């Protein structure tokens, strides 16, 4: 089936086409789903290389599961976010058990651009602050405030109640706010009135 036509097709129908050997279906699914998986892993792990590994692993699980996917059942994105979250949790636990907590070195920004420096500094500070949150809080904050998912969808992904999601995101945001409270000037965050 031509790729243009496939752009309107639902995720689970694309999975069926993929299982039937349609290679265009895998391209459309990759374009649609890989960024979500990669960004979630990137925020959860704070490490590009590990995020790439997790994203590749999650997508591999999707390809392998395609023939058994129940059409009209759970959303593909929900399933994929959950797989990614579990893979990230495994990595974080492994890190803790081996005592490694490598924080990626920030990339060198373009020289002379103060604005970009501050933007980069804020992004790095946010990532560090996210890294300092307990794992479940981090997951809820990333999915809610960066990936933009709804609370019921996050509840399904994390297999908890919507109220528990609200509680996790609220506590996570309070903790993040506390981290940023003392770094306003350093990060160029404007004072509002």
């Amino acid at each position, binding site marked *: 089936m031509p790729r243009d036509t496939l752009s309107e097709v639902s995720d689970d129908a694309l999975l069926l086409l*993929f299982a039937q050997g349609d*290679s265009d279906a895998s391209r459309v699914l*990759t374009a649609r789903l890989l960024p979500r998986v990669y960004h979630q892993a990137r925020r959860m792990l704070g490490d590009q290389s590990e995020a790439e590994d997790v994203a590749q692993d999650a997508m*591999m699980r999707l*390809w392998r599961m395609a023939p058994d996917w129940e059409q009209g059942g759970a959303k593909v994105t929900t399933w994929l976010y959950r797989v990614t979250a579990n893979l990230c949790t495994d990595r974080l636990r492994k890190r803790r058990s081996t005592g490694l907590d490598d924080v990626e070195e920030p990339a060198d920004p373009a020289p002379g651009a103060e604005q970009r420096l501050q*933007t980069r500094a804020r992004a790095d500070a946010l990532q560090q602050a996210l890294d300092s949150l307990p794992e479940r809080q981090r997951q809820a904050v990333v999915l809610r405030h960066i990936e933009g998912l709804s609370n019921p969808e996050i509840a399904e992904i994390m297999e908890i109640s919507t109220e528990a999601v609200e509680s996790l995101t609220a506590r996570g945001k309070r903790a993040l*706010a506390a981290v940023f409270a003392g770094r306003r000037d350093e990060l160029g965050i404007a004072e*509002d009135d």
Partner: protein
Amino acid sequence: MTDQDRSTNRLDALLQEAARSQDDVPAALTSRVLADAARVQSERPVAPGPVRRRRSFSWLPGGWPGLGGLVAATCAGFWIGVSPPDLLPDTGAVLLGYDVSETAGFAGGADGFGWDAEEG
């Protein structure tokens, strides 16, 4: 506006900035994922498309063999109705108001054509 409100607003702005400025997916990662997809597709036989279920009588007690028996029994019953054995009353005649003895007499009359009389 309280300090807490200001703090929350600043954090929301930071999170929105983070959501807007997500890193691009590395091209090498996309290539690896597509290569994985191609490998998985080549490893297994192509899954069949949605199978249209053949209309089936499997829900009947006994399934197809049961249906065959039902057809045979219906044919046999019809034939018995058309040509009942001698031992059974002719229900058709009874229902149509003929005297059974009339039909018996007709049968009796037809079986000899008087030949029995000729033979003495």
